[in-house]
């Protein structure tokens, strides 16, 4: 899927002072710098042999897993958190004796927010490091870039971010939401009496695959629900767009007379300028709420939330979800970040992709144990239909379509960057990679069929 969201590491947070925050990271940098000086020569000489040497330094026969998240470049801000999460899960599992008595040994690579480097690093993980499973990717394009590599070499990828659907790969497990688990229920909610009974929809997104596909589904859905076509507007802005004056002007005109809601799939750093402009042009959350699919706690951390309060988001998990295991999870995550001197330490927050990345590791672990093997084909079968008590409540892997049953939660943004849940699906929602509105004839099934099939 999607977002260019914030969340790496490290900012100065409210309450702390700038200096005291900058200190450790600077020292950290110096230490790293030292390592570089020492390491560069060796690394440059050994090149790929380095990996080989490292892997033999470990204990007897660990299971190797790959972590394929951008640690530098524009996406680092989002993806570093997922690496941390996976590492935390790995540490937890290893502390309890590993998988079938074997330690998990993560191989971390950095595709540097560069899509073709994603393909290269995926090849490296599969062909050279021969990992059993890979946890990674954030943007749709990075997933699409590695997909052929995984399919060609029969690898296994756990993809933890909500996405646009219309994909059904034998080599990927999708632990984030399919469109029918996020976008569709969110709009359903807005149309309901409880949600405000909105009748006009402005679909606004960053111009790439996730917003385009999501909006295609939403448009089909709205038309099916008898919303006239002239009450639906669709607009896309380029990545990193900053100037939302014109769009907010259009929006104001569209919203006049009431009953209008904005469905935002705006990505990453465009959000703050958009919300600010929206508020400054005199638009209110009461008249025209913005329902966002790419704004989560991690993005709101350290952001000026004043312009966002009262607007909505749809996810499958929030840090504020009130379950005992979630309290434990949040506390563990903060403790992990603090212990490992990760930037921001215990000020870190959890959100939907973090939870999805986390339980993905456990789903894989359970499957390996069930299959008594780390072999991709065996693990795949063992994943089908497996359940896990995730922080946000029990989730279940679909019996055939490689996606995940999850609950749908609509949240309202609060001033502290957390969400108040205003609506919750009655139970777990079955994932549908092919939307009933745009591809009613298609289904995804790797048990009874060979992937995508005609119903």
């Amino acid at each position, binding site marked *: 899927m999607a977002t260019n969201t914030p969340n790496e590491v490290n900012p100065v947070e409210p309450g702390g002072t700038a200096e005291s925050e900058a200190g450790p990271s600077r020292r950290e940098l110096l230490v790293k710098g030292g390592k570089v000086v020492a390491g560069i020569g060796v*690394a440059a000489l050994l090149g790929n042999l380095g990996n080989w040497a490292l892997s033999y330094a470990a204990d007897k026969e660990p299971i190797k897993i790959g972590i394929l998240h951008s640690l530098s470049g524009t996406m680092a801000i989002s993806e570093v958190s997922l690496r941390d999460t996976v590492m935390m899960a790995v540490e937890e599992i290893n502390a309890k004796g590993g998988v079938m008595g074997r330690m998990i040994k993560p191989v971390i690579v950095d595709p540097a927010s560069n899509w073709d480097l994603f393909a290269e690093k995926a090849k490296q993980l599969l062909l050279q490091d021969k990992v059993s499973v890979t946890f990674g990717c954030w943007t749709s394009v990075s997933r699409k*870039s590695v997909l052929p590599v995984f399919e060609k070499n029969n690898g296994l990828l756990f993809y933890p971010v909500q996405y646009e659907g219309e994909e059904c790969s034998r080599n990927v497990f999708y632990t984030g939401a399919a469109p029918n688990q996020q976008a569709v229920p969110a709009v359903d909610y807005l149309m309901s009496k409880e949600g405000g009974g909105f009748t006009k929809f402005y679909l606004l997104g960053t111009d*790439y695959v996730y917003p385009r596909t999501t909006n*295609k589904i939403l448009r089909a859905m709205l038309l099916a629900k008898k919303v006239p076509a002239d009450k639906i507007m669709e607009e896309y802005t380029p990545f990193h767009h900053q100037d939302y004056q014109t769009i907010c002007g259009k929006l104001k005109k569209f919203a006049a007379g009431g009953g209008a809601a904005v469905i935002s799939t705006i990505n990453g750093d465009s959000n703050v300028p958009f919300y600010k402009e929206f508020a400054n042009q005199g638009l209110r959350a009461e008249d025209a709420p913005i329902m966002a699919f790419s704004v989560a706690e991690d993005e709101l951390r350290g952001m000026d939330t004043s312009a966002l309060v009262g607007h909505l988001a749809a996810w499958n998990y929030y840090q504020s979800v009130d379950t005992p295991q979630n309290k434990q999870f949040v506390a563990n995550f903060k403790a992990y970040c603090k212990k490992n001197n990760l930037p921001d330490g215990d000020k870190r927050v959890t959100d939907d992709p973090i939870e999805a990345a986390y339980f993905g590791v456990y789903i894989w672990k359970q499957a390996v144990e069930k299959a008594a093997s780390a072999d991709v084909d065996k693990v795949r079968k063992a994943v089908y239909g497996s359940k896990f008590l995730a922080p946000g409540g029990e989730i279940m892997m679909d019996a055939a379509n490689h996606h995940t049953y999850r609950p749908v939660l609509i949240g309202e943004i609060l001033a502290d960057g957390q969400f108040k849940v205003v609506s919750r699906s009655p139970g777990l929602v079955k994932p549908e990679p092919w939307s009933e509105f745009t591809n009613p004839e298609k289904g995804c099934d790797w048990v009874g069929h060979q992937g995508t099939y005609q119903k």
Partner: protein
Amino acid sequence: MSDGTTDTNRSGGLGFAVVGAILLVVMPLLNLLPPEDSWFHLSDFSLNRFGKFLAFAILALGLDLIWGYTGILSLGQGVFFGLGAYCMGMHMMLTIGKESVYGSDMPDFMVWNQVKELPFFWKPFYSFPAAVIGALLVPMAFALVFGFFAFRSRIKGVYFAIITQALALAAWLVFNRNDTNLGGTNGLTDFKQVLGYRLSEPGTQRALYVITVLCLGASYLLCQWIIRSRAGRVLVAVRDSEKRVVFSGYTPANYKLFVFVVSAGLAGLAGLLYAPQVGIITPAQIGVLPSLEMVIWVAVGGRGSLAGAVIGAVSVNYGRSVLTNYFPELWPFMLGGLFVLVVLLFPDGMVGMIRKGKDLLTRRKAGEEKPIVPNQKVVVPEGKR
């Protein structure tokens, strides 16, 4: 000619043959012959990756021609690279056929974009020769038009650099648009075959590698021929004193246009070879930052030296590939730092350093003639001061 090619004349032929033999014969054999666990075995992955670097080296040659020799800084080479890669990519998209996710004859992204009919500009790319010719001619034609307007009005120096940068930004924005039917941010991917050969087969990749090496060799010889011709000296002359070139009866704009178009063609060729080897081409490869990075390759290797361009492209990309494994957060520091360092201290890059080292060793013997340093500023550049 003086730009270091005088010594290439003497020892260059041999060096070219040796390097060519290693790249063309030894590397594929190392991939093919030794058993997989041998120390000498070169994995499919490494060979394929190296092929990608060599494709970049072709682009670097073109950039060296325009920047190193002629002194025109083009910050828009990524655009030409992208045009070439997209032409090839479009062909490969069309050959996927029913194997795609949607099982449609149309490329996947058009299906989800609800494009019902293949846009007209896609149609020629059903043909492989058309795609190859397009990958070369489209960038060249684009460079011809853009360059014609730029050079005709005597836009130069910093001005030219800035408008080519703006061009890269504009191209990036346009390619990112979904309604241009070029695949948007996701670009073109999931290629299956080229000319009926499966891209997933190591043999196909090996063949692509060999073709890349051959293209690189041919490009190298082409560039060498250009710079050794009188026209090549005019290019250097343009860099040294454009005013004098005008007053010697040449029209510098035509020469600049020529070299700009050639460099665009080489960038297109690089893109053409890149797409099938990497298996994806996205707008991320053609924007402002990648275009600037291409300049780094040449700067690091040594501008004004063809060998330098090749060495720079390969070593910077190899460095990135390896170092991002170990020091991901430090890579941008290194890249930036390297660039500042090279510009400040080693304006002739790695080749310049090697040459200087060699000179130190041979000075006693050779004596008389001063080493020729291509980038030493002799004439204060026009435009400023």
